[in-house]
């Protein structure tokens, strides 16, 4: 008798727990956001960083089902997306892997990321000698959108094409035609392939304009290359607005999510150094959240804020 009662009580408890679990689970699935069904992959520091998970929660009100610590915009994050272990990944916005794998870069519609738009920095003296430099580089920047930059990176790092060849094709397709240049300038770059591609594009456009160009690429990191620009060893360098501003102001926190305001601030710091930042491009190289094509289609994702919408 006692055994039967105990068994009945046990069964009742079990039924209660099972029904509670299924109710709880069901409720979550129907009421949750899209993000609550997805896994985010990013570098281990992501949960603590304002430009990563912390910002996604604070600015966008997004909470993911799970965060998986992988690598900073590297192969493990990419494989996790391809394998389906994660649906959202943090990559750099100009990473060719985005195009190669058909990932969809979600629009940062609430401007979480600082404006690391590409911007040419030129020595004022070179600009005074050849005013055509400004027109030529502005025209290049006007054509450099995100798709263009990502494709240039892909041709070099994925397809294995030579930088001068890739730059030549892009310059020819752009139909740039400037003239009236004279004398010579030196174009530099850090040892980052993206900057070398841009440096080569600058060089070819300026050569078309009649200027003799010396190339000093792969010089090292910003700590080496920027002083070379200030001392006149090089005259032109492709930079990233927010990061370069925080470099020249020693991390004063003046960079913002607005590229125009960031470039204005950048120029305030550059004037005393005999340098000037020209027009910035639409293309950026900053943190970007990507999803696979399948995930984007399934949930209709275009912007990061779409992740906060209720799940279908």
């Amino acid at each position, binding site marked *: 008798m006692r055994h039967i009662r105990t068994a009945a009580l046990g069964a009742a408890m079990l039924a209660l727990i099972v029904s509670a679990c299924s109710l709880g689970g069901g409720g979550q699935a129907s009421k949750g956001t899209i993000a609550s069904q997805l896994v985010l*992959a990013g*570098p*281990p*520091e992501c949960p*603590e960083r304002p430009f990563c998970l912390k910002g996604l929660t604070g600015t966008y009100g997004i909470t993911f089902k799970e965060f*998986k*610590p*992988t*690598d900073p915009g590297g*192969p*493990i994050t990419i*494989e*996790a997306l*391809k*394998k*389906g*272990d*994660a649906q959202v990944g943090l990559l750099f916005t100009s990473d060719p892997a985005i195009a190669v794998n058909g990932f969809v870069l979600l629009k940062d519609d609430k401007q979480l990321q600082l404006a690391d738009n590409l911007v040419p920095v030129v020595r004022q003296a070179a600009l005074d000698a050849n005013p055509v430099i400004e027109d030529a580089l502005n025209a290049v920047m006007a054509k450099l959108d995100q798709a263009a930059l990502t494709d240039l990176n892909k041709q070099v790092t994925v397809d294995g094409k030579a930088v001068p060849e890739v730059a030549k094709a892009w310059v020819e397709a752009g139909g740039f035609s400037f003239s009236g240049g004279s004398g010579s300038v030196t174009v530099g770059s850090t040892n980052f392939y993206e900057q070398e591609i841009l440096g080569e594009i600058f060089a070819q456009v300026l050569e078309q304009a009649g200027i003799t160009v010396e190339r000093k690429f792969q010089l090292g990191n910003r700590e080496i290359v920027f002083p070379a620009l200030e001392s006149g060893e090089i005259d032109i360098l492709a930079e990233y607005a927010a990061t370069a501003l925080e470099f020249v102001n020693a991390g004063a926190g003046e960079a913002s999510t607005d590229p125009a305001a960031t470039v204005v601030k950048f120029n305030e710091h550059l004037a005393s150094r005999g340098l000037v930042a020209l027009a910035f491009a639409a293309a950026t190289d900053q943190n970007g959240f990507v999803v696979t094509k399948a995930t984007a289609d399934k949930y209709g994702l275009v912007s990061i804020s779409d992740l906060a919408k209720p799940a279908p």
Partner: protein
Amino acid sequence: MDLLRGVATWFSDPGNWSGSNGVPWRIGEHVVLSALAVALAVAIALPAGLAIGHTGRGERIATAVAGLGRAVPSYALLILFVPLFGLGFSSALPALILLAIPPILVNTVAGIRAVEADGVEAGRGMGMTGVQVLARVELPAAMPAIVAGLRTSAVQVVATATLAALVAGGGLGRYIVDGFALQQDDRILAGAVLVAFLAIGTDRALTAAQRRFERRPGSIPIGAPGAPGAPSSPFAPPGPSAV
């Protein structure tokens, strides 16, 4: 000194002892992953080693394969496995199994081969079948060498299981990888200390097991490593300093 104080503070913070990122949970993950890897490695390497040692066939190939296995870094295997098996333990486990196999395989083969021919012949003379000779004469005599291989494997696996954290796996490597990413030296060192203690503990436990086999009454000491005239084990068990 500041760093040591930081590590002490880290260990005394109750927040680091609870939840799915707490020390007990992370140790549990680490132990489960390591134990599973070693157990599966034994399941593969022990029968293979016994067969090769007993028949004497394929010994060179086994040694070559084991040498190759030891030469390929676990980190490289781990990264290669992510596209195949996905993130976390599903990639870490096969990488650790491949790390654990060579010492067990080589020591098993060497242990069986080192059993003196007199003992084997006496067994055959008594009318034992090949399997009986293997089970009653060769295996007991080779047991200390096999356990020594197991010990080497287990210590290597416990130390290397930290790599799982690089591919979003759990375990004690989480503290080291996260600490590095967040530039928190105290967390890195705390993780390293925990891994070291776990590896030393594993080594001690298996050393005790190895001694028990060496002294077991009724076991045949012929050819046991350490016995006079016996060839030394190709895998000398590492001391704690090898961690």
